[in-house]
Each structure stands twice: as structure tokens, then as C-alpha cells.
């Protein structure tokens, strides 16, 4: 094993002497690169965003913007990282920096380095269609969702959007653009131990399962979006951290005749781009899930692994009738997602067991929708999340799967509502009756996000909305 090190802005920095729970943000800042800022330490503000070179979808390598505050520094062993300082200097500005300076996209400036990195990632996205404007897209094809995880409290965002929409394409000789044509750094096996704690990145899935079998208290981590919050906000310090996010076995996406199988360690962004709209329900979900920065790291394995009652992905996957594939050193098993959750943040997952993939049966139901009720358009936690997958043939509901998040201690299937729809005509009367049932599903709570009354009302409304959309073709 070589000495753990990371290339930051073209310079190799040793990772061997850092405490295991040091974040990439603290690491770069302690290395003197104080441009990246901490605004929240929980993935909400994007002030810490940096670029990481990762295996790409349309080019061998892509520059991906991530929340440095959530990543363990050790996780970028062998990788290339670029911070705002590495993009350009005051006397040799990067085009993104120039646009931000000229358009006034920086006011107090604290959010700026993070915005610059998020914007640069989109600037370098090879499949950005530079001639296509559209909803949330600039005339240069800039997808505003690229900045959905960056908060600014000063500018009112307008000058930032102006800067983003003014960007051209990278010139041919741009080093970060040409870097995309070479493969990304291969995953390396990592072991960092300090103060009695260890960070491990095994080479293969069997290696990972062996470690987990021998030391079941080892915490597997994938995208680390939950890990980072746990460390920074809740003071969690696992003694052994096992990184599974680069295991090739967990990073496949295969379309079989009877199912789509999605590797548990693919990021949501990777899944979104690989599926490319072929699962409409998920295509509707992804833009509403957290922010681009989070989606660039967050995995389905982690989303199910944390067992959160408001997991957005669960609501969608329940509607799709998904199954969870689990594996430990002794073997594999498959569990329907509807049976996976057993209680508040509890599941059938055994110590030492990993989620390897999520299987979505084919064919897909023809009528699907994902409704996320939240106050903000980007980057907000759901008050309720509802996934619908219906088969309506000849005006009659032949199949109905409804997944709910945020209405009980676990995500759940709305079985009673499904029964109220099944084999009934898809009419306003059926819907009105089913709405009553849907309102009573789960045990919604009052909290600062929404009242129980509101949550229940929204459940009912969402079915009405779906009905309206399927019958009027209206969207709203």
C-alpha cells in the first residue's frame, strides 16, 4: 500500500498523518487553502464545494462538485481535487471567476468559492447543450440545478445566475477540459490509522465483506453524506470506517429483460444520467432530491442504509415495487423493499451485511408520478413524499403501487389506498373515495416542517393532482 496522498490543485499532499474523522474541508483549509469555507458543516450551504475528478459518463473523467465538509479526507486518497484557488488567480482568472467578478456575483464573498466550483463543474459538463435554453436552463444550456446546493444570503442570486448564463464553452487548450479525456485515477486501497481509529478502503467486495464479518461494528460508508453530518453535527466517531463507494461490484447499472438493477454505490447523479429518463418516476425524483452537490455523492445504498423515515428514494422505489439485494460473507438474499423497514431507522439489514443493489422489476407501470411536498424548490427536506405507479387500462385501475415517505416511522406502502383504487374505474368518484383513505395512511406528526393536518391533507391532494394530470394532461 502506498502512502495515502491527494493531489490538490496540482500538488500532492500527504493524508497519512490526519485523524481519521478529518473532513476534506478541514484538511484543505489546514493545508493553507482557506478559500473553501465552512458555512454549515452539514451539506446545506455549498460554501465548501470543491471539484473532484471522477470517472465520467460522457467523457473518461468528469469534474464533479462535492461538499468537502461531508467527505472524509482519507476518501480522496489518490484522487485529484481542485479548489477555487486552483481554478485561477487574481491575475489569471478562470472564465467562471471572471464572469462572477464582472457580473457582481460576489457580494460579501463568503459563498463565492463554493459557487465558483459548482459553476465550474457545470461549465465542464461535456453534455451541456450550449444551444439549448429551457426551464431552469440558461441560453448556454447551463443547468441551474448545478447551483441548487449553494446558498447566498447577499446577492439575491440574480448576478450569480447572470454569470452562469454568460459562460461559453471551455477553450480547447483549457487544462481541466483536456483532463476530461484521460481516465480518472483508479481507486486505490487505503488504510489510515491514528489515535486508535482506522479508515479502510478495500480493493474488492469480498475483501469488504470479510472485514465486516470479522469486525461487524465497522461502519460501511458510501457517499458519506450522512457520515459527514454524523461526524460534524452529532459528534459520531466510529472506530473503523470502511469505504465501499468505489467497489466496482457495487457500481454497475444493468438493464435486464425483467428488471433494472442499480448498484448500491452509484451516486444519484450517476444513476440519473445513466437511466437518462428511462424510469420516469426516478427522473421526476432526482431533481427534487437534496441538491446537485449532495446527489453527486449520495447513493441508494446509503439512502436505504440509513433507514430514514423521510427517505425520498424509498417512496419512489416502493411505488416501483423495488427489491433490495443484500450480501454478507455467508451469502446473498433479496428482500422486497416493502418488507425492508422494520421500525424507526431500523431495517432487516444485519450487522456485516451490505446492500449490493436495488432491483426495479420491468415492465414499468405506465402512469407514474413523484410528488415531494416541501417549502423550497431546491434543497429542502420533504414534509411528505409520495410515489405513484399505476396501470390504468381501459379506464380501470389494474395495478396500483403507492409509496409514502414522511408520514410514519418508516417509509411505507399505502396498501389501503391501493386497495381502494384497484379494479375500480379511474374516475373522480374513485379518486375522491381513495383520497379519504390516503389521508388516513400512516401516522403523520406535527413538527416545525408541517402540521399533521397539513401532511394528511397533502396526501389526499397529491392523488387529486395525479388524477388531474392523467385526465386533463395538465401540469401544475
Amino acid at each position, binding site marked *: 500500500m502506498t502512502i495515502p496522498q491527494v493531489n490538490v490543485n496540482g500538488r500532492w499532499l500527504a493524508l497519512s498523518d490526519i485523524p481519521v474523522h478529518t473532513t476534506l474541508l478541514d484538511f484543505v483549509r489546514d493545508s493553507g487553502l482557506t478559500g473553501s469555507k465552512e*458555512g454549515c*458543516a452539514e451539506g446545506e450551504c455549498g460554501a465548501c464545494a470543491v471539484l473532484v475528478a471522477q470517472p465520467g459518463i460522457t467523457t473518461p473523467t468528469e469534474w464533479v462538485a462535492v461538499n468537502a465538509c461531508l467527505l472524509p479526507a482519507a476518501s480522496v486518497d489518490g484522487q485529484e481535487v481542485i479548489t477555487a484557488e486552483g481554478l485561477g488567480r487574481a491575475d489569471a482568472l478562470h472564465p467562471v471567476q471572471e464572469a462572477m467578478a464582472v457580473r457582481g456575483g460576489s457580494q460579501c*464573498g463568503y459563498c463565492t468559492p463554493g459557487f465558483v466550483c459548482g459553476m465550474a463543474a457545470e461549465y465542464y459538463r461535456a453534455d451541456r447543450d450550449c444551444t439549448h435554453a429551457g426551464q*431552469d436552463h440558461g441560453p448556454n444550456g447551463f443547468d441551474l440545478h448545478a447551483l441548487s446546493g449553494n446558498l447566498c444570503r447577499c446577492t439575491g442570486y440574480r*448576478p450569480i445566475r447572470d454569470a452562469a448564463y454568460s459562460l461559453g464553452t471551455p477553450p480547447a487548450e483549457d487544462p481541466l477540459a483536456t483532463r476530461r479525456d484521460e481516465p480518472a485515477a483508479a481507486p486505490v486501497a487505503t488504510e489510515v490509522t491514528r489515535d486508535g481509529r482506522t479508515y479502510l478502503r478495500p480493493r474488492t467486495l469480498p475483501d469488504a465483506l470479510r472485514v465486516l464479518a470479522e469486525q461487524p461494528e465497522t461502519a460501511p460508508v458510501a457517499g458519506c453524506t450522512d457520515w459527514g453530518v454524523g461526524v460534524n453535527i452529532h459528534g459520531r466517531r466510529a472506530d473503523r470506517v470502511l469505504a465501499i463507494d468505489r467497489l466496482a461490484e457495487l457500481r454497475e447499472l444493468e438493464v435486464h429483460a425483467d428488471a433494472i438493477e442499480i448498484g448500491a454505490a452509484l451516486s444519484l447523479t450517476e444513476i440519473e444520467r445513466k437511466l437518462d429518463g428511462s424510469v420516469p418516476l426516478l427522473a421526476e425524483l432526482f431533481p427534487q432530491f437534496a441538491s446537485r452537490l449532495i446527489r453527486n455523492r449520495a447513493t441508494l445504498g446509503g439512502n436505504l442504509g440509513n433507514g430514514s423515515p423521510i427517505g425520498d428514494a424509498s417512496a419512489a422505489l416502493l411505488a416501483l415495487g423495488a427489491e433490495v439485494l443484500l450480501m454478507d460473507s455467508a451469502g446473498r438474499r433479496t428482500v422486497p423493499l416493502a418488507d425492508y423497514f422494520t421500525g424507526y431507522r431500523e431495517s432487516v439489514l444485519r450487522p456485516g451485511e451490505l446492500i449490493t443493489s436495488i432491483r426495479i422489476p420491468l415492465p414499468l407501470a405506465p402512469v407514474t408520478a413523484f410528488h415531494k411536498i416541501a417549502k423550497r424548490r431546491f434543497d429542502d427536506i420533504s414534509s411528505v413524499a409520495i410515489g405513484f405507479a399505476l396501470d390504468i387500462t381501459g379506464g380501470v385501475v389494474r395495478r396500483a403501487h403507492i409509496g409514502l415517505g414522511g408520514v410514519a416511522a418508516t417509509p411505507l406502502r399505502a396498501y389501503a389506498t391501493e386497495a381502494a383504487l384497484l379494479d375500480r374505474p379511474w374516475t373522480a368518484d374513485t379518486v375522491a373515495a381513495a383520497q379519504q383513505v390516503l389521508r388516513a395512511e400512516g401516522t403523520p406528526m406535527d413538527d416545525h416542517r408541517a402540521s399533521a393536518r397539513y401532511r394528511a391533507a397533502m396526501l389526499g391532494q397529491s392523488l387529486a393532482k395525479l388524477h388531474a394530470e392523467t385526465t386533463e394532461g395538465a401540469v401544475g
Partner: protein
Amino acid sequence: MTDMATGTPLSRVDGLLKVTGGADYAADHNPPGLLHAVLVTSTVSRATITGIDTAKARALPGVADVITDFGGVKLPFPAGEISFFGQPVAIALAGTLQQAQHAASVVAVRVTEKPAVTSMDDRQAIAVPSEEVADYARGDADAALKAGPIVLDNSFTVARENHNPMELPATVAQWSGDELTVWDKTQWVQGTGKHIAAALDVPESSVRVICPFIGGAFGSAGRTWPHQVLAAYAARRVKRPVKLVLTRKQMYSGVGYRPESRQRLALAAGADGRITGIVHELKTETARYEAYSEDAAELPKMLYTSPNVRSTYRLVPVDVSAGTFMRGPGFVTGAFALESTLDELAERVDIDPVELRLRNVADRNQITGTPFTQERFADCLRRGAEAFGWARRRPPKARREGNLLIGMGMASAAHPNYMSAASAVARINADGTAVVASATADMGPGTATAMSQLAADGLGLPVAKVRAMLGDSTLPTAPMHAGSATLASIGSAVHTASVAVRDAVVRMAVLDPASPLYQADPATVTVHNGVMSAPGHGSERYGDVLRRHGKDSIDSTQTWKPGDGKKASSYEFGAVFAEVSVDIRLGLVRIRRMRGVYDIGRVVNPKLAHSQAIGGLVGGIGMALLESTARDHRDGRIVNANMADYLVPVHADVPDLEAEFLDGADTASTPIGVKGAAELVIIGVPAAIANAVYNATGVRVRDLPITLDKLL
């Protein structure tokens, strides 16, 4: 001069540093030997501390000290007691942040709890008069309410809000003998220096505070908070430099908030819409250990002609941390009640809301009776209505697009043009460059940029030759960077100093037989690009005359003082227009477009002013629709003390926003004709949005924020 720098949309002078990550904020300083400090804070709202167990923390690797006795330091709350949830009770110090965090997490604080009241609505919470805002009456407002004929009498509530700038509060303190240097996040370097010196009982002159960049503050870094004092205190105790950065969570109880408020606003009017009486009864929450009042009573008293007004302001002391001013303090709160009520009145008397306001516009401050230095309130209303397309507004609930109800609303905004005495130094160097400096700050509006522009014009130099310095307590005296007073005050000082030093060089030249300007009338000398010239005389550079006199540079420090304000009242005005859509099935409100039209005197930099104004509109959108500090009154904890649950607007919440400034300069207020803008631009926003929501849905929401539940 034709090519004035003032009035041009110059890009921010520190923009290059900011986009490349080179701007250094307080937490970016790491002096050698630094220890990281983490505060241990209380988890109850009221108690007596009986003991603090630090043994476990001290035993951890890297831990240098755990300080639990704050003896010898003056803090605003009583020692040995807990006065609010989140109060600092100990400081853990260690070599790395991780170690300090871990140490802080294992410090055990033993307390004897006492009954606490944290809600201003609690029956045990007793309102008391504010010492700062006296009761006010003119005429007999209660009689006017009885007389009618139109009477509206409603209650309004505004939730507590936190400033939530993106930068975390941070202090790095380093002692060298008896001298203390502090890199701090502060809107007032000299104030912080003074307050730290007083709290530690050391001479003010021994404390230097440095803060060249502020990552936003909105009022939260105005006064000096306990963590700043404690960082300096800890550094003295451990004899090492100390860095203390509050967590986002700690900000919610550590650096103030906009207090929660309750208002009764009753208004009487004639059928012609003329206001005949206003009764305004206002309460805000406050800390028991420290009273904070704000100017929420001001606008209902001063803005519209009403012969009868009665206004009372009460504070409700409870067991919470201290509040402080937050963007548009008080004014935005009072304006919400007043401008919502005017909207209701407009409907009752069937007069267009803009016309209704025009009927009640005052030409003088209704409290003092003094005329305004410049009164363009009506112009703002008219121009805004025209530019926004206000004529297209329909009656309530009349506009529908699919499942969306569409509505328009508007509100007035006004804010005093606060000004304070301020000093600045301007220096002309023989090499043709210049420096202008003052101990002010720049939390984002572009103080340094505007200073450069004003100095360039005062000096007759191109902006590129002028460097502005700020954020160091050793520079000439400046007031707090707050209340939108900075540009008017510091700008006037910069202008005065620049003109003074320019005049000094001109005087040297006209008295110097070797100068081509010898014996020219100084009044006829103009300076352009650093070259002095006068009709009938030759010309020469500043540098030429300075060098002949053997000088590398010449400077002048000047203090500017505002007039006493007895003859005229200086105010900024504005009108805000909003169009919203409300999804009838989900109750979701989206802003479609907004426009603010403002009278802020001369606009020094339209690019910066525009983004400042739009930032204010977005702050107002947050206040109207999203922001609320939620508390659990069983123990007083803040339940959404993070950026995931305390929602501020994101990119997608922000539609097309426009801000426009009326031409003109208010030279009666300042020599540079400038008035403030930063507070003004948030003031009418929540009311305009609430009024638009009413116009869309027919639902009047009098409680901010307007959350989904309230519209179902």
C-alpha cells in the same frame, strides 16, 4: 468632470480576491501555536450551575485546557447562573479542532434547574415598558376609532428570525505581552476593541481588531458578543493564540436574532380613504438579562398623515438569549402591520392601494413635524405602479391559471437616513497613486469600492489609482457598519478628506514659484488624472509638486459630522410590488416577479446598489414565506438551529427581481448626496407579498411567515 467614477457600475474592487478564494475572513487566520477553542453551552434555559466536570475532557489527547470559571471577565449574564439555552459555560482548548470538539462534548455540566419561561405568550411572561421607546400619542386615536366610519382592528405576529449570514462568527485572539490583536468577524472593529478591552479590564489602546472581510452579517456582528470576549480571555489564560468559531447551531443563540413580535394595529379612516386615527400596540420578546428594543413603532407614527395616533411598545422579558438588530430592524416589522392594514383599507373603501397611499402621503415627518430633506415617496409609488404594470391587477381571486391563483400586491417602505460622525484619511502619493482609509467595514455592500470611487472623484484620480483600506481599528474613527449609515457617513468623510488633501496640494502648487500653477486662483484649479490645471496657467502632476517639496506623500484626516436634523428630516423611501402564484391544491406560494423603486439619493455604484437591493428583496421573501426560528418551549431549545430546517431562499425561489433607483442626489443630507439603502430594501417586502397572496387567494395572513398550512 465628465468621467466621474461616482455613478458608474464599477466592478467590486475586491472581487478578484473573492472569486479566487484569496479574501481572508477571520477564521482564515492561523497564527503559529494556535489552539482551537470550542464552547460548551447550556442545555437548559434557567438554572444554577453546581459543578462542571472536566476531568474526562482534560485527559483526552491534545487538550490544553478546559476553562470553566469566567472570573475576571465581564459577561452580560450573571456568573454561575444559566440564563438561556445555549449559554456558554465552558471553553475546551486543544491543538486541533476535532480534539477540541471532542473535549467539549464530554464536559459534564451539573445544574439545579429553575422554572423557565421562554415564550412571550406564556401567561407568566409579564410585559414591561421599553426604556428606549416611549409611549406616544397625538390627538385622540381611541376616539377616532370610535368615530369611524371605517375601522380595521387586527393582530399581527412575526416569528423570530436569525440573520444566518453564510460566514460563521469567528475570533482569533493573540496576545503579545499586554497587547492583544484580534482577527474578528465584526461590523465595528473599534467598538469590538473597546468592548473587549472593557470586558477584560485592559486599556482600550492595547487592543487592535482587524476585519478586512465580513462574510455577511445583517446586524449579527454589530455588538460584541460573549464568544469574542471569551476568545480573548482564553488566549490570555493559556498564553497561546486562540481561534474560536461558533457552529451554525451556536449562532442561533450566540449572535442575536430579530425578536418575535405581537402587534395590534387599529386604523380608522373616512370613506375617502383618508386615515383619521391609528392605534399601534406592540410587544417583542427580550432577554431577561438584557433589554433589546427596536424601531417597530416608528412607521405607523411617522409615515402617513393621521391627526390621531397612539403607540405603545412593551418588552416581554423571558429566559432567552439577547436579540439584536437584523436587516430593516423594527421597520420591517411595523411596516408589515401597517402596510397589510392599508391593503385591507383599500379594499374596504374600494380605492386602488397605490392611490390610497398617495392620498395619505405626508410631506413632513409626522412625529417631528419637520419637512423631509427630499420627499420622493409619491414618486416611488407612481413610478413603481407604472413600471410593474400595476394597472393589470384584478380583484381578489379573479386570476387563475390552471391550478395556480395569481395575485399582485404592493407596500411602501421608508427608513431614516441614519448618519454618524465619521473620519477618514486620504493620502496622495508622489507616484500618482492614493490611499483612502477608515476603520469602517464591508460586509458585502461594497464599502471599499464606493470609497474608492468617491475618493477618486474627490482627488481627481482614476479609480484604479486609488486603494481603499478598512477593517482595522488603528485607522481613523468610524461608526458601526450598520443602519445603512456607512456610505452616507464614511462616504462623506472620504469625500471631505479627499477634497482636503487635493486642496492642500493645489495650495502648494499655486504658492510655489516653480509651479506652472503659480499664483493661479485655487478655485479655478481642476484636477484630472492627477494633473492639476487652471485657465491661463500650465499644468502639472500632483507628484511634481510633492517631489519639489521633498515629500513622498501628503495626507489629510478629516471628520465629517451630520447636521443636527432639527430643520429637516432625512429619510429614504421606496415602493415594493410583488406578483405571486399560489397552488390551490398544495398551498405553495411562489414569487413570480417583484420590483422595488427607491429614493436613496445619489447612487454611487449602480451595479452594487442593484445587487444589494435584490438581496434585500430576497431577504424579504425569506421573511415572508420561509424564515422562522422554531422553539420547543418545554426546555427553550431551538429545534431548527441549522440550515436544513431553518429555510432561507435558494436560487429557484428567486424569480425575476428588479430594483430601480430614482435619479437625484440628496445634498441637503450629505455633501455627496447619498442616503442609505441596505435596510430600506427589505422593509415593505413581507407586506407586499402578504398583500399579493391575499389578492391571489382572498386569504389574509397576518402571521409571518406565510406557511403552507395557513393557506389551506
